[in-house]
């Protein structure tokens, strides 16, 4: 159960060329934008793949999901593979209904996501212009 809206900044880690971004407890407009911002920043500094981990995410709404489409666009433009991990059943259902799973892979957990990305050939470093929003 989600008890409160997490107001802390989005946490992210680097695993080689892969950035792992941890979503907060509620995926809505603001937290979605934070993830988007973090993803763009990671791509701008040369990350070649992204994992967005929803381990802590209890609830999602359609606005948050729509912003994830922006993340998918940004990753596609940088030709960086994107994997969503630890997506709970409710979020997975929304991702499915709203078509996110057509463009990004789902992994059971972060490790599975990293394994999945290690199996693909990551693209050359192609930084994305910071602040370019669609």
């Amino acid at each position, binding site marked *: 159960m989600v008890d409160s809206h997490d107001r802390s900044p989005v946490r992210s880690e680097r695993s080689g060329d892969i950035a792992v971004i941890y979503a907060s407890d*509620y995926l809505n407009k*603001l937290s979605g934008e934070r*993830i988007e911002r973090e993803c763009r920043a990671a791509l701008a500094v040369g990350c070649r793949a992204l994992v967005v981990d929803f381990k802590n995410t209890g609830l999602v*709404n*359609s606005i948050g999901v*729509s912003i994830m489409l922006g993340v998918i666009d940004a990753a596609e433009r940088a030709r960086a593979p994107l994997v969503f991990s630890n997506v709970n059943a409710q979020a997975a259902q929304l991702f499915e209904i709203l078509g996110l799973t057509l463009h990004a892979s789902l992994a059971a957990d972060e490790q599975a996501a990293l394994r999945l990305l290690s199996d693909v050939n990551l693209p050359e470093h192609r930084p994305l212009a910071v602040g370019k929003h669609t």
Partner: protein
Amino acid sequence: MSTDNLFKAAPAKRILGRIAPENFIGRSEHLREITALAPATSPRSGLLVHAAPAAGASELLRQAYDKLFQQRGAASPVYFAFTRHEQTVVAAARRFLHTFLTQLVAHRRADASFVNAPPALRDLIDLADPSDYEWIERLVMTYERTREGGDELALVRLCFGAPALAAARGARSVVLLDEIQNVEKLGGEIELGNEIAQVSMHGEVPFVLCGLRRGLLDELSGGNAPHRFDGFGTIHLEGLKEADARTLVERLAFTERVSINDETRDLIVQLFGGSPFYIASFMYSAHRDNVSLTSFLECQKIYVDEILGGRINRRFNSILEEVTPSHTTRRALIRLLHDAATNAGGKSPVEAWRRRLELEPDELYPLMFALHVRELASFNATFMEIGTENLWRDYLRASYRLQVAAEPRALVVADTLVETLKRAPQTMARHYRRAAALNLRELLARFDAQRVAASLLHYDRFSRIYRGIETEEIELGLDAETDLIRLPQIVHASSCAAFHPAMLLVCDEERCAVAHGFDAMPYTDANEVVWLTAEIDSKLEAGRAVTEVWCDRLAQVGASCGFKRFKLWLAAPEGFSAEASELLNERGAFSSSRQQLELLTARLSPEAAGGAGAVAGADAPDEFEMVIPMGSDTELIAAHTVEQIARRLDFPAEAINQIKTALIEACINAAEHSLSPDRKIYQRFRLESDKLVVTVSSRGLIVPSPTNAGANGNDAREENNGRRGWGLKLIRTLMDEVEFERVDDGTRLRMTKYLHR
């Protein structure tokens, strides 16, 4: 809304007040200004009250009278209204003297009983307080001698000079003169307006001079040597503010025992533009007919009754009778007014009026001026422009059909009801749009050469730096910015339509503004600048196409108005796309989102803002109600609540998640798709043996669907990019039954989840 337990006020004594003091709403400041004239130490010599028609000016003076009457030992209040039935200046002066002495004696005897039933003048001598007996007797004798002598000017000066004479004998008064615009019609050689002005300016007695705002100063002007009214204060009396008008409706609903609800209350306020006279007439009519006003239909039925035969009808009839006593001319006037109202722009040349009414100039101009003063039309030397108030136009249309076209009354009633009923949601929609507008004009008016962070006026920069960051952090960031913009000093801000009426065709008046100012000192041509601003209606970041349209529109306004140097500033609630920002930079235009405007507003005049929610208790063991404020993730509170409720019926975890998600989407929908006036979401959860029914409602305007082009011409598909508007689709997928309906004043979404399906 039940009114049974509201407003337990004790009845107050009334003398001239037509309504109970506790129902006299929104005028306390004006009342205080008038009663403050009573002490001899008052710094003011009097007050000029410029009143809008039907704004309740007479009631203000009457309430002031009652209040002053209760102040024993202070100045005696005297209320006198010039009526349109008075024939001559002398008659008016004689009636004034009689009224003055009656009310003065009544106050000094502390006996209000004969204020409304004045004794004969000679009887007043006997009723007078012993300390007043001598001077009143002498005054009455002088009056009688002067009247017999036939010197009209001397008589008028004696009568209107009576307050000064009384004050000199220790009987000070506050004289409240009402409906001064009627002085104009009084026959005779004497310019009564000028006499009143002289008396009120040069005596020791404070005067309140009240009249219709388009006529007051004309009457008191003094011709070629205008009076200055030194020491006088000014009251501009207009319709009630919305909050006060709402309170008035609620109070009258309580005292008249008429049921209303929030939706109908707000509709009534909008129908009558905050006029206390019309609102009171309407509520009295509902009381008389024993009608409960809990739906738009019931409200519009009473409205139509009032237009066609109630007090409102009688008010307009009476004005037209006064303007033109001849029945034939009046009929022709109604036809002319109706035709002019249906013209584009509501204008018609004065020459057409002369020909169609077959009147000579000396008859025509007073008629047109009378309509002008009563604000039923505007007389602009070469043409007449009919007033745009819906109430007046509805009356005009119905009167034309009944009196000129001789259509059956039943048909006129039915048509008027149907038309006004269709208009009611539009009236409310217009109100909501106005309330939800970003108030660019007000914001511009606060520009006074302050320096602010440049990012507040450049959406692309703001978005790049602050997107996804909490407000507190943004504020810190703005404080630290070194790139600052110096705002102009704005000296005049107005709606764009006031300069360029064609803009009304593409946007609401309050969404586009023109502000004149200087971007540096001194005040020279070189420093003069005009800011042209508009608010683009877009749910998402505004796209390049719509932004370009608006840049062109504003530039066209600037060019057609002949502004030498102007600056464009566009605002969109969610900001602008990258492509639009590029265009704005090319055009040198400023751009801001709602968030930027809020931050800018806070910087220009720091004020705390915030809202609070309310949670209502359950009214049945298996039914729960909850009200949450829109925004600030309050949908999470609703989601947690519905989870606890669903658990009572042992819904499986997956179903609970689906209900929670659906409810979150419904709340977001309610917040996003309505320009809600109260910013609240009303929820009801009803548990039945095999299902949970969740109802989510909100008041306000239903925002057009994304597939429709917006009112300001933007292509919504371009703006949405197919990524929003999923709420209802999701809800339908997650719940078993979904009903979405539009109600009188908003929307209601009912969602059902079955336990076993």
